[in-house]
């Protein structure tokens, strides 16, 4: 029910934002290109896409490795496994713990497809945000369209970059996992697949959205690099779209990190085998991060909307000052 009403109101917010420059800026800091006053926030689309994406990720985590589709790979991976692992070869539905390698490979495959879709959507959102910020009051529609076209045509290049960066990051994360205590002399493929999964979860989307960071000295690379540093080293996203990228990534890292903890218990459970706990931790962390990004953005948006409706109701601005100040203070912390 609320879904039907919110899009209109969201659009209203966006329009109002564009027209009303006196609204306090979300971030006082203006080091980067966020000169727009209010981030564009497609509430309804975001809601549905986050919902679908996280549920599909959960499906990938819990069911994809067990579907009959995945049994196609059984022959391939069984040969790579310990002979002792394939005791239940005959039982038709493969379990998640039967072959960690196969499970994680399917997690990667499913995640890859979902991330392409998700990253494409986030990229579009990010583009809209830039359009708004560049177009200001949305006067130069044609120029915007032109930009959009170049943007779209750059999609393939961006996809290639994202894949490349993910591939590099997968090796990097595998090495990090190795440093954190993954087996050094065995289980290479498992460790690599964990690295790939984490890279897909954390690197692919920002790489597709922001472009790869580079150490070139031109202004675009500098801005890209600083954005990456701000997002992933300082962990300070400034808009809903950045939040939608950063929170799940941080969640995936933390989930992966904490997933290593139960693996050390001596319960001798099949699910404790490397790298199941860390992989599921990463996926779970991603889903939680994605949902909390959505929650925070939605709350913020509601607060903004509420404040603006008060402003528009009392043009004298007497009601605006305490509220506005409060929220401003809240954000600058």
């Amino acid at each position, binding site marked *: 029910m609320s879904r039907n009403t919110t899009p209109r109101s969201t659009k209203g917010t966006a329009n109002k934002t564009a027209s009303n420059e006196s609204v306090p800026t979300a971030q006082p800091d203006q080091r980067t290109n966020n000169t727009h006053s209010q981030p564009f926030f497609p509430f309804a689309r975001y809601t549905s896409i986050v919902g679908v994406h996280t549920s599909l990720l959960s499906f990938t985590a819990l069911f994809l490795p067990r579907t009959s589709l995945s049994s196609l790979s059984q022959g391939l991976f069984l040969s790579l496994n310990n002979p002792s692992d394939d005791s239940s070869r005959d039982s038709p539905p493969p379990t998640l713990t039967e072959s960690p390698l196969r499970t994680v490979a399917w997690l990667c495959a499913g995640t890859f497809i979902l991330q392409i879709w998700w990253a494409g959507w986030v990229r579009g959102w990010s583009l809209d945000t830039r359009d708004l910020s560049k177009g200001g009051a949305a006067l130069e529609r044609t120029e915007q369209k032109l930009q959009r076209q170049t943007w779209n045509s750059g999609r393939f290049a961006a996809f290639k970059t994202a894949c490349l960066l993910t591939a590099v990051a997968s090796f990097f994360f595998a090495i990090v996992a*190795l*440093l*954190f*205590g993954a087996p*050094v*002399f065995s289980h290479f493929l498992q460790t690599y697949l964990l690295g790939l999964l984490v890279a897909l979860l954390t690197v692919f989307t920002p790489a597709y959205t922001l472009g790869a960071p580079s150490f070139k000295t031109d202004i675009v690379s500098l801005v890209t690099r600083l954005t990456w*540093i701000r997002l*992933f*080293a*300082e*962990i300070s996203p400034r808009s809903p779209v950045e939040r939608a990228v950063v929170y799940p990534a941080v969640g995936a890292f933390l989930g992966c*990190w904490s997933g*290593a*903890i139960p693996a*050390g*218990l*001596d*319960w001798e459970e099949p699910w404790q085998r490397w790298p199941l706990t860390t992989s599921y931790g990463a996926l779970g962390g991603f889903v939680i991060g994605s949902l909390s990004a959505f929650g925070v953005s939605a709350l913020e948006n509601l607060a903004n909307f509420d404040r603006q409706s008060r402003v528009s109701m009392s043009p004298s601005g007497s009601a605006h000052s305490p509220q506005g100040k409060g929220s401003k203070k809240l954000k600058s912390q």
Partner: protein
Amino acid sequence: MWSKGFTIILWLFLTHLGGVYLYTRGFLLTRLALSETNSCSPEACPFPPSYSKAIVLIIDALRFDFVAPNPPVPPSPFHHNFLRLPAELSQSQPDHSLLLYAFPDPPTTTLQRIKGLTTGSLPTFVDMGSNFGGSSILEDSIIGQLRAHGKRLAFMGDDTWMTVFPDAFGNMSWPFDSFHVEDLHTVDEGVIRHLFPLLREEAKTWDFILGHFLGVDHVGHRMGPDHPNMKAKLEQMDRVLRDVVEELDDDTLLVVLGDHGMDSKGDHGGDGALETSAALWLYSKTRPLVNPEVDIPEHYRTYRTYPNAPVPHRSVQQIDLVPSLSLLLGIPIPFNNLGTVIPELFWTDHAGERFSNAVRANAAQIKRYLDTYRGSSAGGELDDAWEGLQKHWNAVNALNGSLKSIGLDTFTRVALATCRAMWAQFNVTVMSLGLTLIVSSAFAAWAVYAKLGSLQEDWESWSEQTTWTCTKWSTVGAIIGLSVYFATVPFIKVAGLLDCVVFGAFMASSICLVSNNRTSITQSFHISSIPLPLVLHTLAFMSNSFTFWEDHLTTFLLLSSIVPFVLIGFTAPTPRLRYRVLGFSALFAVCVRLIGISTVCREEQQPYCEVTFFASSAITAPPILVLILSIPCAIGLPLIVKRFLNISQADKGIAGILLPLIFPSVLLQSTVAWLLEWLESADALGPTWSPVLRGARTVLAWLSIGGTLLICASLWYHVTLCIEVKSREVAGKREVTVIGFANLFGSSFLMFWLISFSLIYVATQLTGQVILCISAVALLSFLEVVDSVRDIRGMDIAFSSGKPSTLLEVDGTQSHTASVGLRFSEITPLALLGVHTFYGTGHQATISSIQWKAAFVLTAKMRYTTSIITVLLNNFGPFFLFALAIPLLALWNTAPLPHPTSASNARRLGVRAASGLMLYYGTLLIGSAASSAWLRRHLMVWKVFAPRFMLAASSLLVVDIAVLLAVGVGMSRVEAGLNRLLGAMPTMNKGVKEKVP
């Protein structure tokens, strides 16, 4: 040495000592193992043997109800009434069979029970004696007595016996691995396979057979007692016993017993009612064993009801078997025995003459044991009970006839109760006092750490004043403790005088210190300041898995603790700082992981662990790779250190002599000494070379230690500073250039650290030496990371202060330590590195992993002083080294200008870092002490928790001593050197060569 800040650390150390002392006294049950043996005299062996041969069959974990004639109601369909033979024979032949309900003393683990069953004594955690490390029994025992009396022994079953009696059974021993709990049958079938041929021999080649079945125990552990497998297993045991009885001849006594019981889940180790319920059955086929006709006074016969059983059953202490079996076989009762003869076995005549002889021999033996123990070095343990025991003994000896027998019997029981209270009961009160003190000392360390962060120049007066207050309050507390002791001693007696005084003194001063500085504590506390690695590390001790996988845990935590630095590194304003942070972090991470590869694997880590410290799990030689790397490491490390110092141009002064020349040669001598040891033990050159090699390595080790102490230490002590002063005449003016000023404190202190490093290097095996080198590189990279991160923070502060130009001032970027301060997150990696290197150098938190090889570094034979020193260096070296390095966090790249302020500030931060490290290790001790107190009846307490507590306690004390040395000697000498330098050049034109920021 008694310089500023030293006393406060000393006081923290004493508080730790007090806490550890109290807790250990309550928790670690120790007993002095006396090595005396008894021999047969008319008094000790009052009558000829009743049997010349005996078969003792131990069915591991045979709980009493498994064989009980009246099992609990309702009976279990899986384990009751299947092993029927003992009850049947006791019913049909009451004069040939005696079924008893035995009480085994906790801890109910097989090793402890074997010790109890053979020596008749009570098990303690540490049976202190000449064999501290091994688990073999050197006390007098039934097995030893049998051998001494020329009996031929045969053994089959659980291989624990082979570790306890390595050479008692000769060639008639068939041990089987007891570790594979999954395997239910191998051991039992092995026992059966080897038992019956011996029984069927025409001319017996044995006098005593010991068989130890493990199947029942393994079924219990794996499936629990309520499982069809248990039924099958018990039925199999019943068949075996019937076959044994079938084969039994006249002159042989059969004893079947469970070494302990099992709880409802099939586990054991604690003191639960089911775990301490074991079966004991004695059977003699033709000759009568007991006389059911006689009327034994009720006094001698105790009864116990098994839980839910309909009737009580005759019960004995399990160790009562020891004196009974000894006298039946005509051997003297073992010297340390505390059991009492079982009256039924000796009361065969109506007057009970035989029994009174037996009990007299028994009581005399126990009295002799008590007297000897009283006269030994541990005799003080008997202080409280001695008077009562003496009185009892004298009173009994005045009696006559049957009363005397009763009195003697009571005396043995009183002696057992006394010893049990002394050795086998945790003193929970003293334990809680100790734990409270440990916790409050951690709070005190926190208070010191927090307060030193908020103080500036006035910290010296604060520390003096605090020391004075602490002394005052300790006196007050000691008096309170004293008076509480004397006020309560007439009513309850749980803690000794010393306990009360120690507790009172340190508790009062801790409370005073914490309450005086509570505002600093509350101010310093934020959610974000909670050190997550420390919290996880401490909580890990609550779990046995994490405790025995702690070596992997430290890798994980160390890497996690470096992540915040890496994230800050990405935000660095200049590429140079960024590359420094990221590069050195990567180097640190790689070093940590390399250290983590080396392990000796503890028993519980199998089968998921592969020994890499040695060439294989069976050979204690270093791996080939280590042999190749050892010499390059020894020579290379000082050069690497020089390269690190060169970053700040601090490789001058004595560093210019020590690093390229002396340290490489000293370290090389240590390495070659160990390489010779490898040659010697590998026997590569033949036995004729052995004495040559031995002599050569002794000489090399002494040369190495001598070189370190005589050359390095004395040079450092007198010259101290790593600095180069050049002066030249320029246009009539004298210009003095000082090189290495920017890292003067750090480099000079590092030389001090390297001296200890090379001392520990001598005592460390080859693999450990390589690991030590890697860990030194890790330390230096971490210091560089911390330095760069502080630069980044300092720049951030400068930028946000609105006056970035302060960065351009001479000591603008250099003295960030002052403005940025010291964080606990910088202490955590160093503390963890100590633990990590401990594991990497082939140690584990077990007593068996102590590297005794290190005892023979300096001498061919065990010598008390040098051997103990080298073993201690070997074992605690890693903790010591990284605690000694802790002031480097405050000193590294800290320029000593402006003069008195900078030195005082560095000292404050050094003391602060020291208290932070003490806080870290103190918290670890809380974790392990609390977990071993809480889980003191846990199955694993003696295998996992107690050894980890001992490690935590001893490493805390080692860390304390190390930081005391670091602050009292290292930092003080560097400061004194600086004072000399600046005093010599009062009008020095300081052309300070700066480190490029």
